[in-house]
């Protein structure tokens, strides 16, 4: 039992076939995906830097986090919409590329971490102890950079 038939079916859907045969559509979706990443990583980096004590002036992290929440969310929605569409155009290749599975695993962990521990620590008032804030920031940065790197890896590593 593998998920391969599922990926084959996805690739053979109308949407998958249409995107696959249009270089312009693939390029457009990848651009949208990257702009979403810019919003997501840019805002998360900002919150994490604040947790690490390298924020803007002396503004508390809870304020920065609250103000940026919406942008992180928009970035995430953009990525979660464009990502599966890109996947549908090359589902079988992704299935055979380990980097894709690494990315999905890291993404799942990053999402759970982001909406539980990270959110709680970033919005805590009064702020959590510095050592804990720094630990959370490093984990968050490692997870999201891992997701981005694995994403790049999908394009670089072709299945053998």
């Amino acid at each position: 039992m593998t998920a391969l038939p599922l990926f084959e079916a996805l690739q053979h859907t109308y949407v998958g076939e249409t995107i696959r045969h249009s270089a312009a559509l693939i390029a457009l979706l990848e651009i949208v995906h990257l702009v979403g990443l810019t919003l997501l990583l840019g805002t998360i980096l900002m919150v994490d830097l604040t947790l690490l004590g390298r924020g803007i002036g002396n503004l508390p992290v809870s304020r920065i986090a609250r103000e940026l929440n919406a942008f992180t969310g928009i970035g995430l929605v953009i990525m979660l919409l464009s990502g599966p569409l890109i996947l549908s155009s090359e589902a079988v290749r992704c299935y055979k590329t380990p980097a894709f599975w690494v990315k999905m695993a890291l993404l799942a962990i990053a999402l759970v971490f982001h909406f539980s521990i990270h959110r709680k620590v970033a919005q805590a008032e009064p702020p959590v102890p510095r050592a804990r804030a720094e630990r959370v920031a490093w984990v968050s940065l490692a997870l999201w950079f891992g997701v981005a790197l694995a994403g790049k890896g999908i394009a670089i590593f072709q299945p053998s």
Partner: protein
Amino acid sequence: MFLLSICQWIDSTRFNAVMRQSNWAFPTLDTIHTLGIVLVAGAIMLVDFRLLGLGLRSVPLAQLVARMVPATLAGFALMLASGGLLFSSEAVKMYHSPAFRIKVLLLALAGMNALIFHRTIYRDVANWDPGAVVPIRARLAGLLSLIFWIGIIAAGRAIAYGPGYDLG
């Protein structure tokens, strides 16, 4: 053509041969370049959103800019370095790539926009921030910056889909 002969010379150098023969040089530089541009553009977009009144409204603009400008300049230097190396691994191809030309043009426009903003309306930021409304010229600078940077990301990605590239 002068520029073309420079590109041809770059493609004939030893460095270019090394880049082409290595399986790792290009993907590594490409990854650094992509992640870097996402971070640089991310930082710039936060300032743009603030100028447009879309977010970070409770953060004083001068503090935000003071924090962002050094980080952005450092990130941009990294972009230029990695981008320069990527360029020199396929200079003639870049010379013929319309997306590459558009990207360079947009980079120049984004730079000019930022320079004009800092030299003019931002000079007396203390007089209008914090205030109820961001002056129209500052908002315009933010909007243009947003458009230019999304364009730079798009053009950068499009280079890989230009003439001579394998869509694999």
